[in-house]
């Protein structure tokens, strides 16, 4: 029986963008790179200390001008362990987590390094919402948010 031939045309998108980070984000990344510190923004109206920092408060809808330094320790508020490989994304398994750093009111995402993932149930004993976490700064920093990562405080 004759099978109908169906043609597939291959295609690829390779679009390069250059996103302007703006003053606040630039300040965050430069301070991270040059001083090994994490800066948050504080809204004068509602008082929230926000990470990642933003030059405006989405709720109060006013400009935010003040940058404040936050601590290098905090609590894990959420995490996941990634097992499935996805094209263009890091090789699994790895952990990503949200951490509320001391002094901040919101949590910021980053990789959680150094977790032994060889046995899932043991890992889940350590990886818990509420676990203590510290910030580890890379030796060589380039001004990207991956210049730091989190580690569980054992």
């Amino acid at each position, binding site marked *: 029986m004759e099978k109908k031939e*169906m043609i597939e045309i291959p295609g690829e998108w390779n679009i390069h963008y250059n996103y302007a980070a703006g003053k606040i984000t630039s300040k965050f990344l430069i301070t991270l790179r040059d001083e090994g510190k994490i800066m948050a923004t504080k809204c004068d109206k509602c008082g929230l200390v926000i990470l*990642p920092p933003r030059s405006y408060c989405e709720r109060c809808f006013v400009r935010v001008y003040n940058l404040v330094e936050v601590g290098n320790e905090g609590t894990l508020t959420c995490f996941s*362990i990634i*097992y*499935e490989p*996805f*094209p263009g994304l890091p090789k699994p398994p790895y952990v990503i987590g949200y951490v509320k750093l001391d002094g901040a009111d*919101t*949590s910021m995402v980053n990789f959680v390094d150094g977790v032994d993932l060889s046995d899932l149930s043991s890992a889940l004993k350590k990886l818990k919402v*509420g676990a203590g976490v510290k910030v580890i700064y890379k030796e060589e920093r380039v001004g990207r948010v991956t210049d730091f990562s989190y580690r569980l405080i054992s």
Partner: protein
Amino acid sequence: MLRNVAVIGVGQSNFKYYRPDSTLVELAQEATHLAVKDGKISLDDIEAVVVGVAPTALFGIDAVERWFVGAVGGRNKPFLRVNTGGATGGSAFQAGYFHVASGIFDLVMVAGAEKVGESPDTQFILNQIWEPAWERDFALNAINMCAFQAVRHMHRYKTTMEDFARVSVRCHANALLNPHAHIRKAVTTEEVLSSRVICWPITLLGACPRSSGGCAVILASERKAKELSTRPAWVTGVQECTNTVFMGDKMDMPFNDHADFDDLAIATKRAYDMAGIDLPIKQIDVAEIYGPFSNMEIAAVEALGFCPKGKGAQMEKDGAFQLNGELPVNPSGGVLCTNPISITALVRVAEAALQVMQKAEARQVKNVKRAVATGMGGSLQIHTCTILSDEPR
């Protein structure tokens, strides 16, 4: 005074993973013709078209709706496209509703299609939805953002992976009765729990497939609906709510925590108010809920007010959401069995409309007067809620 608007026709493909026989627009065309036939009108009768397609990067064609125009009978008619990520179908429906509710149009087509099988890079593309400075580096994608919701819900309410698995068992069983569903294979709790972990705690059988196909819905003014249909599905409420993209703003928060869908609850309350509903568990007869991962249906039933927060898993366990239960959820099999991203939220509305119009065939729930359909997009941040009724407001 709000004008009455109704659904008078629905069309949807039999969803599959891959459709090499059709282009994306031919899938929309297929659904459009089915809807027009169901509504007993002709394509020329349609006065305006709303197309819902989500990230066009998935199709590899920018502004792809421009290609749709001819296929959905829209040439030289008022035509617009809506994109709110995963909630697109719900937002497109809402936009169609406003076309008619404004008094400007009497017959409007809402249509869309999805062809996911053409790119293997779906999650890479969905990594590009995040803020370039803050979130892309961490391989955030559409799966792990939902895993985060599960982790928060488990932490707050002691929900378990078994609780999530029950949702998947129910949906897969329901899909056997739906000829349009993509995955039509029953699963057991054990199978769900032992399937491969993708992003903990989400396992393969607790996750949606990727589906290709089209869907179209026809909306009519009160005058036209009464003329053309003996049992239209009246749109008594349709609302949306958008939250911040930053999931970190929702971690460990008294209100608007990532465990809950407080944003869906806001959209729902507004929709219920529009529809005059104050006791949803009694007044809603069937729900088509947007839940691409099983954990999300539990938070959704709580947000819809069917039970207090943290009690959704117990209600599921008690069988309340089964086809023969107190309030059937996803008699179609839901998103866990069929996920044509661009139109998934539109399919929810279509299925809810079929229930109200009593055209849902083997999956018809008895005595449906009111149905609710939800849509969700973004970082679990964009929510639509639509209420359909057998009576106008």
